[in-house]
């Protein structure tokens, strides 16, 4: 697949690259320890020592934002991976073979989509407990329908194309037709779906942690930090702004990528 260069794509690429570098660095090194408290430096405003100031425990907000972004990033990545793999599997089989299984599975997807993902995730997590793995799996499963739907539509469209008929006449096996002939044609819609899914996952994780059913302290995630920070909105506004700003940056970078891909593959103009 070829993607034409455009402004959205370029900006998105640069932003994503910078953010990814910062986040990956954050896995190994942050300016201060993310849980290192310092009673002498409580709620300091931003300075050269603490780029985003400190919180109520004297922890460096910048370090915590980076590490929190890392947690959110990993969860979002995992959620999209689970959702995408599951969705591609279900969507391509449904789209290619059709029939009753297709009809039933798509109605199940409709039913899941009808509920807000976060609501379902809240129920599941409050039943089975929080923690990274549970959130990841739960959100991932809930994200499957959105991927299944776009893949199914594309596969059903491409299935009857002449070039697929030709491939059948040439004796290409059904599995190979699906994987190597049809699936690459779904990328122009799958890639934007992945990026949009990534953003939704970042927001879903942040919402859950904000509501207190997501990542538990002392591990930092953007959502849980946002929850902590609201108590100190008056004394340490940089805490909330820094955390919220990171969420915005993360979502914006990937949105730009998504827009760039859609425009670059000629699917942006509707």
């Amino acid at each position, binding site marked *: 697949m070829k993607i034409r260069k455009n402004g959205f794509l370029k900006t998105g690429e640069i932003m994503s690259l910078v953010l990814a570098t910062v986040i990956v660095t954050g896995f190994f090194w942050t300016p201060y320890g993310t849980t290192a408290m310092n009673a002498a430096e409580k709620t300091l405003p931003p300075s050269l020592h603490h780029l985003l100031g400190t919180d109520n425990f004297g922890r460096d907000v910048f370090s915590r934002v980076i590490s929190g972004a890392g947690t959110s990033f990993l969860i979002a990545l995992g959620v999209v991976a689970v959702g995408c793999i599951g969705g591609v599997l279900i969507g391509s089989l449904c789209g290619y073979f059709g029939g009753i299984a297709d009809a039933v599975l798509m109605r199940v997807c409709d039913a899941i989509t009808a509920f807000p993902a976060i609501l379902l995730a809240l129920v599941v997590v409050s039943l089975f407990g929080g923690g990274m793995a549970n959130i990841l799996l739960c959100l991932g499963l809930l994200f499957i329908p959105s991927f299944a739907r776009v893949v199914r539509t594309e596969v059903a469209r491409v299935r009857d194309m002449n070039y697929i*008929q*030709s491939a*059948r006449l040439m*004796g*290409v096996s059904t599995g190979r037709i699906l994987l190597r002939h049809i699936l690459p044609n779904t990328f122009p819609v799958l890639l934007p779906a992945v990026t949009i899914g990534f953003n939704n996952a970042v927001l879903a994780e942040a919402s859950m942690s904000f509501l207190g059913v997501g990542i538990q302290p002392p591990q930092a995630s953007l959502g849980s930090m946002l929850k902590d920070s609201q108590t100190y909105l008056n004394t340490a506004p940089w805490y909330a702004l820094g955390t919220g700003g990171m969420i915005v940056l993360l979502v914006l970078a990937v949105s730009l990528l998504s827009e760039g891909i859609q425009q670059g593959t000629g699917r942006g103009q509707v």
Partner: protein
Amino acid sequence: MTESVLEVRHVSSYYTKARRLSGTHSGFGERDMQVLRDVTFSIQKGETLGLVGESGSGKTTLCRAVLGLGMDYEGEIIHHTDHPQMVFQDPYSSLNPARTVGWTLREALRAGERRGKRASRPLVPEILGQVGLSEEYIDRYPYELSGGQRQRVCIAAAVIQRPQLILLDEPVSALDVTIQAQILRLLVRLKKEFGLSYLFISHDLNVIYQICDRVLVMKQGEIVESGDVRQVYEDPQHDYTKMLLAAVD
């Protein structure tokens, strides 16, 4: 006595009401519609058989039945050769837009090898040369090609497995006249070179006249006239054939 590569005996086919819960095949309301009526013909080795008729006369349906592309039919279709190939009318939906020319041709070779046709088959650059395209087209995507170039690639993909029979469903109808002539010349040359037989479908009697040995005239799913192309052209028997010919002049 020549041997036949394909025999079609008393084939009838109907469009039935859509039975699928979901899918793209739609029926024509409640009533079954007959699209092929007792069609019988055969194609001899090395022959180009023309099939002419207006749109909706069942030409493409017949093609799909012959190739086993999901058409239910009554009657017998006997293949005396392996794996006939097909070239479609619309060169824009006949090549995978996500794949390069080289990939498509290599895939055809690979699929052929799975069928055990390993012996003496041409390589991708050679087959491109055969259809009049240079090696640099290997890395091109379909959207970088013109309609005529795409049709050449489709023809290359069809002959690369060395089939004995190729079905051509209006292969030049979507092309402009000068390109049409080039493609027709190419088809004639490839036929000699590879010992191919063609079933050549067209609504254009001029094209049929240029390339075919024999011709079948089809009307509403029925073969109303058949015979040597010159004879049918000069002395048509059926009113429908006369009408088609009159439309040409």
